[in-house]
């Protein structure tokens, strides 16, 4: 991508960030009215991901559609998580990791030479496999962490509104409204994960990446999170890595199946399509075998 393109990407990223900032200061009512806001599209073209010399993911081209839930499924070690982490430039935090190919957010290259990874991560949020609230912060501060951690000064009343809205958005408000000052680690596992979701949506990203968000949770908490995902897609573009086939079929609109030929070979995208189609009549034999549980 040329220098002119990079500049465009940079300015548009800057604009998008300002948009996020302004929506962040709206009152709960206006945000409620803004439900179903158009989110952004993530597109990858021939993405290759490496850890040092080892290639983890080979030639993935796919689109994460706006306001839809895209599930990434596949056996362990096939590069789903690595791929997900490349979508908000978390992959490069691992020593020796590198990326090759193009990943765009509404047409802007997020790996452009003049794009700041910090800006990318403000637009593309992430929820991790195991709940990781900040242990030194209260429930309130955990949700407000994105606002506190980022330089902009936010008024207390606005912060209160954002925290309440995010906790309501994560279906956690009623459970924690009386103990906002308690440490985040005092909540149960499922509550902690919803707290992490509230923390991620408090900064109003465009895209929400979830890396097996339910793998450490019991079925009841899992169901709560899946319901939540279904609601969040009206405002965000969501990509979710999951090992749970039922979860993919229940919670996602689009499913991408990753596989690797054998151990030591890079993972590839085998097939992507509407979830219903992938689970009932996939085009590839490998997909059929995997979703029907015959291997993998």
């Amino acid at each position, binding site marked *: 991508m040329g220098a002119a393109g990079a500049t465009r990407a940079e300015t548009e990223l800057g604009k998008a960030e300002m948009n996020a900032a302004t929506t962040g200061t709206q009152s709960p009512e206006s945000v409620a009215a803004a439900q179903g806001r158009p989110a952004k599209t993530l597109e990858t073209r021939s993405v290759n991901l490496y850890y040092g010399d080892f290639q983890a993911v080979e030639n993935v081209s796919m689109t994460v559609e706006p306001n839809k839930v895209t599930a990434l499924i596949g056996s362990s070690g096939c590069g789903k998580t690595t791929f997900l982490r490349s979508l908000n430039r978390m992959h490069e*935090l691992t020593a020796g990791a590198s990326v090759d190919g193009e990943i765009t957010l509404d047409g802007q290259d997020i790996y452009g030479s003049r794009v700041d990874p910090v*800006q990318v991560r*403000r637009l593309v949020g992430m929820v991790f496999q195991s709940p990781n609230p*900040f*242990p030194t912060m209260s429930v309130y501060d955990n949700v407000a962490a994105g606002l506190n951690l*980022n330089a902009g000064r936010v008024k207390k009343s606005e912060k209160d509104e954002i925290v309440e809205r995010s906790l309501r958005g994560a279906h956690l408000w009623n459970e924690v409204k009386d103990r906002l000052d308690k440490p985040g680690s005092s909540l149960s596992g499922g509550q902690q994960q919803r707290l992490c979701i509230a*923390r991620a949506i408090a900064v109003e990203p465009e895209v929400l990446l979830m890396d097996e968000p339910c793998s450490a949770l019991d079925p009841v908490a899992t169901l709560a999170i899946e319901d939540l995902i279904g609601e969040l897609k009206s405002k965000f573009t969501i990509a979710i890595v999951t090992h749970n086939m039922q979860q993919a079929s229940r919670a996602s609109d689009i499913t991408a199946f990753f596989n690797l030929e054998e151990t030591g070979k890079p993972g590839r995208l085998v097939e992507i399509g509407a979830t219903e189609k992938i689970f009932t009549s996939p085009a590839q034999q490998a997909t059929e075998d995997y979703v029907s549980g015959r291997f993998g």
Partner: protein
Amino acid sequence: MSTLDGGVLPDWSSYGVVAASGVLAAALLLAAGIFSVALLLVLTVFVTAVVTYTWSRRIEGPRRAKDRLVTLMIVAAFGLALIPLLSLVFEVAKRGIPGLSLEFLTESARGHIGGGGAAHALVGTLVITGAAALISIPVGLMAAIYLTEYGGGRLGRALTFFVDVMTGIPSIVAGLFAYALFALIFGPGIRLGVMGSVALSVLMIPIVIRTSEEVLKIVPNHLREASYALGTPKWRTIVKVVLPTAFAGLITGMMIAVARIIGETAPLLVTTGVVDSINSNPFSGRMQNLAVYAYSEYRTPGVFKQASYDRAWAAALTLIVIVMVLNLVARLIYRRYRTEIR
């Protein structure tokens, strides 16, 4: 007898065997006419080991017998390690308390012939150590942050290597370094409190780096990643997430580093010198700390020798009390502020 139902020694067995062995050992030593407390302890441990192992092996089998034997060895080793510590504290307290008085803590030695107190040394200890901490903690903490958060490259490895080397520097060398440094600037014969602080920082910085580095390493990576995923820059992640999470451990490490250098003598002899009057300005004139005070009272006692020796012991006791208080404070802070991290 079912397969799960093995024999077990009675609950009183461990204490019973020790007591019986003690009596037996005492009888043997008295019979041989070579009784002494040290021999009694050694023989008691030996007899207990033999009796416990044989008895337990017969009833409980070889695995439990070995377990009991090793447990006994560990307890004995712990006791052995405790003896010098307890004897030291006891001896210093016994000899130090007679020298302690209000005068000792509030008066300097100026104008007293063979008398006076150690207030100048107490002030000197606090000022010199405080200034050393003021130099070492920021430098050490920032170096540790560099090592854990940034440095993976050649500079990081070089820094780690030199920190290891610095940890092994004899303290007198640190003192000579500080002396040479200031002599270059102010000419030979210079004695200043701040010179002592510089010498002590040379000793303290590697300790601060090492302890802080260990503590920062424990902060789980997933917390850093959670912060990055919110679009937080790295430096803010360090300041707002990493350091608060490690806070309790960092404070403890710094307290331990202070406790380690507060009793230094050799580097201060050549840098801060010996003095009789209270001086709280590290940038002007000689200063003395408690360790050097104890040394000089013992080395060059005044007219009333015993009074000088008493003051030397009292200074040692004061120093031990200060270090103990520092350690207690560190523990309290740790308990109060530690964060549960998985």
